[in-house]
């Protein structure tokens, strides 16, 4: 479905991704593990067109994504739910979520249906429908971000640290939701520091370090890897 091939990405003189390759099969839930600053978000920024590649190729279902604008990427069926949520803080929850369907705006019935589905998935958002998104707690904001991303009807969903700053209970809800989305057929690429939880729902995992993939395999294999254990599983 999604493949990255020898991708390089620079911030000025600093090379954040260094000939990095990875692939996510259709329907997979792929987890990217890595420390702060390892380059997970940079991978996502490269894929979603927010940052130009220095080298390499990215393809989505056979289509080349190099040089496609973020809007074009969304239209191609790939939605990036970013780190830091990037909500529209002064807009209401409903509007935030609805704007996620911007590329499908002509399908009014579809937008309405999508909105109802998101509200059903996160009942707390239905309650806060008309409040400004900025006034919500971190966990609720993360749900808005996820809901907004789902409105884009992604074939591939990139989730960047959805558990960031969330209470353990909320983290669990979040992972439940992600797993559910994946079960319905959406390919998911999930960047996480919360390795335990992430490996619990993953079908495949990559370990990113210093802008490169240093290890990959099925979750169980990684769980048993010494290095992963030491660095990401706190033991």
């Amino acid at each position, binding site marked *: 479905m999604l493949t990255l091939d020898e991708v390089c990405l620079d911030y000025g003189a600093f090379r954040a991704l260094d000939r990095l390759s990875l692939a996510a099969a259709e329907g997979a839930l792929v987890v990217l593990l890595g420390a702060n600053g390892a380059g997970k978000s940079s991978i996502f920024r490269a894929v979603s067109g927010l940052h130009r590649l220095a080298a390499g190729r990215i393809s989505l279902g056979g289509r080349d994504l190099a040089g496609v604008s973020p809007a074009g990427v969304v239209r191609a069926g790939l939605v990036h739910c970013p780190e830091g949520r990037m909500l529209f803080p002064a807009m209401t929850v409903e509007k935030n979520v609805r704007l996620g369907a911007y590329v499908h705006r002509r399908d009014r019935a579809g937008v309405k249906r999508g909105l109802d589905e998101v509200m059903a998935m996160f009942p707390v958002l239905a309650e806060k429908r008309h409040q400004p998104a900025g006034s919500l707690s971190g966990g609720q904001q993360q749900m808005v971000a996820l809901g907004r991303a789902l409105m884009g009807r992604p074939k591939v969903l990139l989730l960047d640290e959805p558990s960031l700053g969330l209470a353990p209970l909320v983290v669990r809800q979040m992972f*439940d939701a992600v797993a559910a989305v994946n079960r319905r057929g959406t390919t998911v690429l999930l960047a996480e520091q919360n390795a335990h*939880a992430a490996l619990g*729902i993953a079908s495949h995992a990559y370990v990113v370090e210093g802008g490169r993939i240093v290890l990959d395999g099925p979750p169980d294999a990684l769980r048993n890897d010494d290095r992963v254990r030491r660095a990401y599983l706190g033991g």
Partner: protein
Amino acid sequence: MLEVRGLTKRFGGLVAMRGVDAAFPPGKISAVIGPNGAGKTTFFNLVSGTYAPTAGRVLLGGRDVTGLRADAMARLGVARTFQATALFDGASVRDNLIIGHRLRTRATLWDALVGSRRLAAEERACRDKAEAVLDLVGLSRIGHRLAGGITQEERKRVAFALALATEPRILLADEPAGGVNPGETAGLAELMRRIVASGVTLCLIEHKMDMVMRLADHVVVLDHGERIAAGTPAEIRADPRVIESYLGVDAAGMPP
């Protein structure tokens, strides 16, 4: 050395820090850990004078320094590094460090205008300091490079050098090993030991548990702006609340 009592910080409706007590003994390495958004950076911002606390007190060597601004705190010997590894990217590494020692100089505009001897002496002192700290962090050979163009690990080292150039008594390091790979992390840990050995008290925020556990003499755990535990690494590792809210050995397990 550094002590806080009942430290509280409110941002509008959000309470980012609530009644935190902590003490950082001199000559030791302390660590502050906790989940994302727990208030660790806020804690540093309060202690270093970047934010004024809503309530509570900050004591430095017994003296009440609550509410002093960051520059005053720096002059009293509290240095810090930033989570995003802030450097003056447009300047060379050496120029970064020279400005880092400015607070220990007294030359004024007048000295600059008349080209006084004091200014010359102090500029020499700043240069010497820059070389000394560069040497300490092991980066003498990249002093001429633009700070914007060096690697993440080098940035972390330069950040330490910059803080050291202020001749601090205590150094607050926010995720000093964030974004560097395990090999480099070990090098940084070594550097931190050297810094403490040179007589600087160190306090760090870190997510890399193995490093914290090996390095720290004393650990404070924050969650939701509150202190949920404090003690030696061994005590912390065994604390059920810490396991639950942070270390995340989630007994319940996640749905497949």
